[in-house]
C-alpha cells in the first residue's frame, strides 16, 4: 500500500488539493455454507499536492451500503385485547445493509446541507414517499432501530482511524444475515464540514458453491426444486425406517 501510494505521488499532480487513495482488504465477499459473518477492512491515504495549505478540520467518512429494497414497516396496536398490526408504511428505498464510519461524530465533520445532498446519515439513506400515516418518521426510526439490532445498520462514530492526517483505516463488521448484491463503499473527505473529495467503489457479496446453486434453482426452477426437496424428504424417511429395522434384528 505504501508503495502504491509512493507511485501515485510520483505521478502528475491532479487539480484537487487533497485526494483519496484507497485499498480494500478484499475484492468480494463469498457467502459459503459456514458463513458466520465477515468484515470489510477499508484503508487508504490522503494525497496532497503540497502547494495549497488545507484549512479546517479533517474528516473521513466511510459508508458501506447493501442493495436497496423496498420494505414495509408495520405497527401493532391493541384491538379487543390482543395486539394486531394496524398501520403500515411502505419505505420505497432502504438499503439492506448500511454502515457509517467516521473519524469523529458525523455532525462535527459534515454540515446538515451536505448530509441532505449526499444522503450519508442513516436517516437520509432511507426514503419513503407518499406515507399516508401520521408520524411517518416514527416508522423509519423503527426500521433503523430493528435493523441496528440485527447488526445491519451500524453507526461507528469513531470507527475511522486517521494517522498523521494522511493514513486512514476502518473495519466494518458484516453480520451473517447479509443480502446478496453489490455493496457500495463510499469514502468522503471533508475539510471544515465541506466535502472535498469522494471515492466510490463496489464490493460484490455473493453466495458461492452449493448455496449459489440451491438459491438459483429455487428461483429459476421452483417446480424442480420442490420435487427435489420432496425426494430428499421421502428418501430420508425411508432410510431411517430401513436403518431401524436392521438395528432391531
Amino acid at each position: 500500500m505504501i508503495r502504491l501510494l509512493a507511485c501515485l505521488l510520483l505521478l502528475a499532480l491532479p487539480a484537487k488539493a487533497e485526494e483519496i487513495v484507497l485499498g480494500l482488504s478484499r475484492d468480494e465477499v463469498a457467502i459459503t455454507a459456514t458463513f458466520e459473518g465477515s468484515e470489510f477492512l477499508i484503508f487508504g491515504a490522503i494525497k496532497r499536492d503540497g502547494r495549497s495549505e488545507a484549512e479546517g478540520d479533517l474528516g473521513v467518512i466511510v459508508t458501506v451500503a447493501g442493495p436497496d429494497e423496498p420494505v414495509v414497516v408495520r405497527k401493532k396496536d391493541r384491538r379487543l385485547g390482543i395486539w394486531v398490526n394496524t398501520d403500515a408504511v411502505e419505505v420505497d428505498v432502504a438499503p439492506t445493509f448500511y454502515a457509517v464510519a467516521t473519524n469523529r461524530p458525523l455532525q462535527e465533520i459534515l454540515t446538515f446541507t451536505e448530509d441532505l445532498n449526499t444522503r450519508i446519515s442513516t436517516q437520509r439513506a432511507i426514503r419513503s414517499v407518499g406515507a399516508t400515516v401520521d408520524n411517518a418518521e416514527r416508522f423509519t426510526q423503527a426500521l433503523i432501530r430493528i435493523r441496528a439490532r440485527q447488526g445491519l445498520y451500524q453507526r461507528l462514530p469513531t470507527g475511522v482511524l486517521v494517522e498523521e492526517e494522511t493514513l486512514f483505516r476502518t473495519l466494518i463488521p458484516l453480520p451473517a444475515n447479509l443480502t446478496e448484491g453489490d455493496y457500495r463503499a463510499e469514502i468522503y473527505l471533508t475539510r471544515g464540514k465541506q466535502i472535498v473529495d469522494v471515492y466510490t467503489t463496489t464490493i460484490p457479496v455473493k453466495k458461492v458453491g452449493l448455496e449459489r446453486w440451491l438459491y438459483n434453482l429455487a428461483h429459476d426452477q421452483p417446480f424442480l426444486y420442490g420435487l427435489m426437496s420432496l425426494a430428499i424428504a421421502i428418501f430420508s424417511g425411508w432410510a431411517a425406517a430401513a436403518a431401524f429395522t436392521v438395528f432391531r434384528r
Partner: protein
Amino acid sequence: MQIYLPIAEVSVNAFLLLGLGGIVGVLSGMFGVGGGFLMTPLLFFIGIPPAVAVATEANQIVASSFSGVLAHLKRKTVDLRMGTVLLIGGLVGSALGILLFNYLKSLGQVELLVQLCYVVFLGMIGTLMFIESLNAIRNANKAGGRAVPKRRKHNWVHNLPFKMKFRVSGLYISVIPPLMVGVLVGVLAAIMGVGGGFIMVPAMIYLLGMPTKVVVGTSLFQIIFVTAFTTMLHATTNYTVDVVLAVLLLVGGVIGAQIGTRIGVKMKAEQLRILLAIMVLAVCGKLAFDLLITPSELYSLGTGGHS
C-alpha cells in the same frame, strides 16, 4: 457449528437444528402428529423468517410422516381407504389455505392469523382431549381393570348420505365428514406449517369413531401427501422452502420418529392422549400469552412490493 441457510439467508447452529428435529421427531412418532405445531414456533424463536419456517416445516413433515407410516404399514394399522378420502379433502383445503395465506400476507396479518389459529385450535382440542382421557383413566380404574371403550354410538354422522365401507376401521359411514375433516386439515397445513395431526387424530377418534389403533397410521398417511402438496405450492409461489434447513431438521426428525413410534406402542392409549393434551395446552398458553402482553417492539418489518 454455524451453517448458512441459502433461502432463509441466515446463519444458525447446525447442532441446534439437529437437536430440535430429534426431539420433535420423538413426539411425532409417539403421537402420530407431524410435530409441526411445536417446530414452527420454535423456528420463529431461533430467527428463521416465518414464511420460510412454515414452508420448510411442511417439507420436513413429509419425511417424518413417511418414516412413521412405514412402521405402521408393517403392523397393518393404516386404513388406506379412509386415508384416501381424507386426502382428497386435504388437497382441496391446502390449495384454499395457500390462497388465504398469500392474501393475508399482502395485508400484513398473516402472523396474527397463524397465532390465532394456534390458540383457538390447540386450546379447544387440548381441553377436550384432556377431559376425555382423564375420564377414561378414572373409569378404567373404577372398573378395576381394562375397560373396553365402546364408542360406536350412533350420532348425526351416521345419518348422512354417500355411505362407504371402511373395513380396516370397521366403519360404515358417509364420506362427507372425513372429507370435511380433510379440508380443514389441509387449510391448517398451508397456513400454519403443520401436518394437522393434532386436529385430525381427535377428529377421527371422536367424530368418525375410528379405533385408536388405526388412527395414528392413517393420519400419517394423509399428512404425507397433504404436506408434500403444500411444499410444492410454497416452493412454486413463494420460493420459501429452504432445503438445507429441511435436511438438518429431518435428519434429526426421522431418527426421532422411529424411536417415538416404538415408545408409543408400549404406552396405553389414555396415557398417550393425556400427554398429548398437556403438550397442546402448553403451546396454546404460550401463544395466547404472547398475543395479550404488550410486545417489546411494536413495529415489525415485512418485505416490500405491492400486493
